[in-house]
């Protein structure tokens, strides 16, 4: 991986800005839920911030992503506006989906966030379709499918990778391997040691990378994205990471190995990146400024969301079809 492209200082700072935003946002969601002000199922991406933050550095608003219920990090990394995010989490009309989609279905096509799905594996076939469209259009767009390690064992994964490999689509399949699918470990659900090994079966390169390492993740992602833009076809990236919380908020997480978890949290990638920036000479002030701005933007979005209206029941008849139901 020594031949991977490396992020420059500005890129690293930008990765940190996104990762910190995700981390702070996650902490805020959890606080708001615990305080009873926000009521929603919530799948925390804490611990997985670096993956989409480093990957999104090589994406534009024209590029597509499809992600999953545990996807606020993927969304925020790609620039999902906070007011529309919080409006949606709070079920308000100001939500990007007018409160109709919710936490598991965040969508913002204006910035290429096409689908967030609650069905394991289903981000892949749709992202494959978006990649097909990008190929037909021929403007160099790429399409990213985010999914978990558990999703790598469902049929849709297989069909999508074969189709993408066969058609040489500009797709990047990013498995965020956090070692758990709900209460089941990676080892208990997967017959292969490294998911990237499966790529060979679809005629595409596969790479396993430390997803919590911003440089490695940036490099692997940039390679894959450039490959896709150049018409050379898809890549499977297995990004190793860890889920700091249980599967869903409220989950007792007794099934998680305590030592393994403590170790992962001790190696929290977000403060680790912060330290790396400091070590590289980025001023504490600059970093603090980024963090402050993130905090303020989140706080403002939360307040705006709570102040906004809840949708009218007439919305049940709207957006079912193009024409409102009589």
């Amino acid at each position, binding site marked *: 991986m020594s031949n991977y492209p490396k992020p420059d200082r500005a890129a690293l700072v930008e990765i940190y800005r996104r990762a910190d935003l995700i981390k702070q946002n996650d902490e805020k969601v959890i606080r708001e839920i615990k305080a009873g002000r926000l009521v929603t199922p919530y799948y925390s991406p804490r611990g997985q911030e670096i993956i989409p933050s480093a990957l999104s550095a090589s994406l534009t608003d024209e590029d597509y992503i499809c992600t999953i219920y545990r996807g606020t990090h993927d969304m925020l990394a790609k620039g999902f506006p906070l007011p529309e995010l919080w409006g949606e989490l709070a079920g308000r009309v100001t939500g990007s989906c007018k409160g109709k989609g919710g936490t598991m279905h965040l969508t913002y096509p204006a910035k290429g966030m096409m689908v967030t799905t609650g069905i394991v594996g*289903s981000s892949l076939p749709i992202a494959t379709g978006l990649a097909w469209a990008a190929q*037909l259009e021929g403007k160099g767009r790429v399409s990213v499918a985010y999914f978990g390690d558990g999703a790598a064992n469902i049929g849709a994964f*297989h069909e999508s990778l074969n189709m993408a490999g066969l058609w040489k689509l500009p797709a990047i399949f990013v498995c965020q391997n956090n070692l758990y699918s709900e209460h089941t470990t990676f080892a208990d659900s997967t017959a292969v040691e490294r998911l990237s090994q499966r790529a060979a079966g679809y005629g595409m390169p596969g790479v396993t990378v430390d997803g919590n390492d911003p440089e490695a993740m940036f490099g692997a992602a940039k390679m894959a994205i450039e490959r896709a833009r150049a018409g050379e076809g898809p890549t499977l990236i297995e990004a190793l990471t860890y889920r700091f919380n249980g599967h869903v908020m409220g989950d007792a997480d007794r099934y998680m190995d305590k030592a393994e978890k403590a170790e992962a949290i001790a190696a929290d990638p977000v403060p680790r990146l912060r330290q790396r920036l400091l070590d590289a000479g980025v001023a504490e002030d600059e970093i603090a400024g980024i963090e402050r701005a993130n905090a303020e933007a989140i706080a403002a979005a939360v307040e705006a969301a709570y102040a906004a209206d809840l949708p009218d029941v007439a919305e049940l008849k709207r957006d079912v079809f193009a024409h409102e139901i009589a």
Partner: protein
Amino acid sequence: MSETITETKPVTMIQALNMALADAMAEDDRVLVLGEDVGDKQEGGIVGVTKGLSSQFGTGRVKATPISEQAILGAAIGASLAGYKPVAEIMLMNFTTVAMDMIVNHAAKLRFMSGGQTHVPIVIRTMTGAGFGTGGQHGDYFEAWFAHVAGIKVVAPSNPADGYGLMRAAIEDPDPVLFIENMPSYWTPGPAPERGSRVEIGKARIARAGSDVTLVTYSRATNDCLAAAEALAADGIQAEVIDLRTIAPWDRAAVFASVEKTGRAVIVHEAVREHGVGAEIAAELSDAFFGKLKAPVKRIGAAFCPVPFSKPLETAFVPQAAGIEATVRGIL
């Protein structure tokens, strides 16, 4: 190839659909066709609805796929989100069972779940119908499943001209449309469609006017209803046959107007009767016309079993004109 068909001669459903696809692709280059075998230059697959399309429009827009129904529909959904209008083929209706997630949880719902930010203007073509000895996994009619799901439209033409017009309308429709084709009647010729015509989705057709009873039907069963109506007419019984053409949303106004006139209704479809589309229509009619009907609303569907193989069983499984006729006589 579509060009060789003269419009004045009768055409088959296969030819009509082939024309519709060719015309739509020629008019709008966002229209794409994908599915198993559709790239086959010689035949356009086993049945040939897509014959000639890959030669005419290229294998970029007419995309042969692996046997991967989830990926086929994912490809269609994704491409539609990006502004294309894909027509995806799921060869037989029984094979929708390997891709229901894509249809039900995504195609039908993305508009609503995104609060109207995205939508999925795809057409899903699929064929079905008993009669060819294909047994229990190749002939089911599952339209009731899809009619039960908000966000997807369901159409099922009974004749080539409607097939053409419904296909053109379905491709232009801003919502996902499931397009059901009956296989055993694929080769039956019928009046040629007017090139460029559209059949409005949601509008039924009075296939035969009558005053004594309303037969509500769609797809191939329309022919059986017409045959039954002929037989009844010999005895002076005038059955009105309504070919729904669109199953969801069904044309309530047309059906209600007819039953208002006749006071009697029989719903006929090839799907298993229990929990079929006939149940919804019967329930609605019985409610709306409470106290005004001259007879109970009857429903006719296939027997409550898988499609059987052996010919006598297969024949008995599917509703036949004689049974329809007998049912009508029973409520007169």
